[in-house]
């Protein structure tokens, strides 16, 4: 039973990170119909920004928790700046182009960012300082859920609630939904569609940056290539839940996390990725629009 719970919580932790990144895919897809393949790189850049900020701040002798919070903020802001800039230079000029062009541009952007970090930083794995304190009250359950796991669960839950509030309850969220449904009409109602799309990228990137910090403190090391696999996994999660659907991204992330965790625990850790992608293939065959995705009957 303990083993089952351990796998359950490790799947939940992993799944919430996937969900956090998948939200960025799904929101961008919902608003401009593009799979933003550079999104995983934003996550990686978030992790590196946090590492740099944490090194500087620790050097000043600040309290580790404060360092963690400040470097997470730095990572989120810097990730948002990257996300918005990528949209501005690589996608916006191609808004009217055939659908394949921005997709290729996205893959190109992903390579540029990876190699930029490779050159600017290092090709090796670098250790990420452990900033999350060990909670004493978790000690009896240490085998089931660690401190960093708990921090990840709580942080992602709060981030997702904030996102739901932003989408459902604010003017910006209202404009985002309008842009997703009918861009031309939104423009005719005086909405600055370009700004709303920038905001969508900013929000998705903030979530990815946050995911980067959390996973880096959880795993303890990062390198320039971590964005690739995380990006593909989160993309799988988004497709699983139904790309374009916000609750779908969360559900997809969790299912993917649990699949991987239980497959690793009960079968073999060698097959972790195999199970994840078998799940993707099965979903694409039997429910191409995803678990919560709407079946599209779009008027042309």
């Amino acid at each position, binding site marked *: 039973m303990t083993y089952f719970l351990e796998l359950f919580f490790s799947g939940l932790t992993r799944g919430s990170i996937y969900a956090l990144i998948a939200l960025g895919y799904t929101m961008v897809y919902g608003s401009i119909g593009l799979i933003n393949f550079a999104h995983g790189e934003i996550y990686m850049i978030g992790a590196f920004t946090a590492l740099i900020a944490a090194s500087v701040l620790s050097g000043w002798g600040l309290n580790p928790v404060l360092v963690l919070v400040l470097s997470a903020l730095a990572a989120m802001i810097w990730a948002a700046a990257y996300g918005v800039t990528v949209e501005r230079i690589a996608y916006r000029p191609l808004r009217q182009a055939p659908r394949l062009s921005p997709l290729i541009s996205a893959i190109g952007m992903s390579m540029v960012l990876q190699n930029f970090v490779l050159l600017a930083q290092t090709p090796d794995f670098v250790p990420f300082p452990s900033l999350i304190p060990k909670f004493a009250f978790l000690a009896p359950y240490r085998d089931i859920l660690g401190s960093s796991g708990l921090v990840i669960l709580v942080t992602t839950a709060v981030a997702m609630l*904030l996102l739901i509030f*932003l989408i459902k309850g*604010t*003017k*910006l*969220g*209202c*404009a985002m*939904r*309008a842009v997703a*449904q*009918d861009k*031309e*009409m*939104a*423009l*005719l*109602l*005086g*909405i*600055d*569609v370009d700004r709303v799309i920038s*905001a969508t990228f*900013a*929000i998705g990137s903030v979530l990815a940056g946050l995911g980067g910090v959390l996973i880096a403190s959880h795993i303890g090391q990062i390198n320039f290539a971590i964005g690739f696999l995380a990006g593909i996994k989160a993309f799988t999660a988004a497709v699983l839940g139904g790309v374009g659907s916000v609750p779908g991204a969360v559900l997809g992330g969790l299912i993917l996390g649990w699949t991987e965790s239980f497959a690793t625990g009960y079968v073999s850790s060698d097959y972790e990725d195999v199970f994840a992608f078998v799940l993707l293939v099965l979903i694409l065959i039997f429910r191409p629009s995803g678990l919560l995705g709407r079946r599209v009957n779009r008027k042309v």
Partner: protein
Amino acid sequence: MSSGEPLLKVQDLGMDFGGLKAVRGLDLEVRAGEIVALIGPNGAGKTTFFNCLTGIYPPSAGEIVLNRPGQPPRRLNGLKPNRITECGLARTFQNIRLFPEMTVIENVMIGCHCRHRAGILGAILRPSAVRREERIIVEGSYRILAELGLAELADLAAKNLPYGLQRYLEIGRALATEPVILLLDEPAAGLNITETAALDACILRLREQRGLAIVLIEHDMRLVMRLSDRIYVMDHGELIASGAPAEIRANPAVIAAYLGEDDAA
């Protein structure tokens, strides 16, 4: 109607799509508080004209100038649709284009956005000024719904409204942008006689209470004759006549091009 410069002045407007001249040499004026109808057979270029006015198509030739009282004249051609909406033009569509997944009240609130600005940080941090602004938007939107008799349906998804009421909601959403000129593209399409009569009253009330100028594309001749102060007739992208309803009814060119084809009209 009032003298002086017209509210909207369109001169020599042209719109080409490749070799096809959808609109040619169109001159048109709208004065404050006036109801102007634009009629003509299908394909005459009426909707294309609306698309030029609202910035969906940049016109290939001509001038569109808006002259709001107390403001300098504003040239509208070449502006993006959201800027034109901010200048005070709003429209509805022939095939209703609501945001189907959003509620009735949200559809109207979207229209209020261009009059209230709060950036992304404001939306997240929500200082009291932003909250106050959002409250003003909600209250204003309910007022518009009440005016159109939709207040009780505010929380219904727009796609679940009956067709006739969707028309009103589209008008309400256009009103939320606080226009000086309202462009209605076939507002009576698909409505029965009772509903059309109610629409009549609604359009007249909008002019009375809000002092709006209204430009109407419509095929229902009874509605056009009842409501319009002046009528412009288009055929094959060109104006073939303009004047008061009685003059238009008697104009032989109009009868030949348009009314003559359909005795019922």
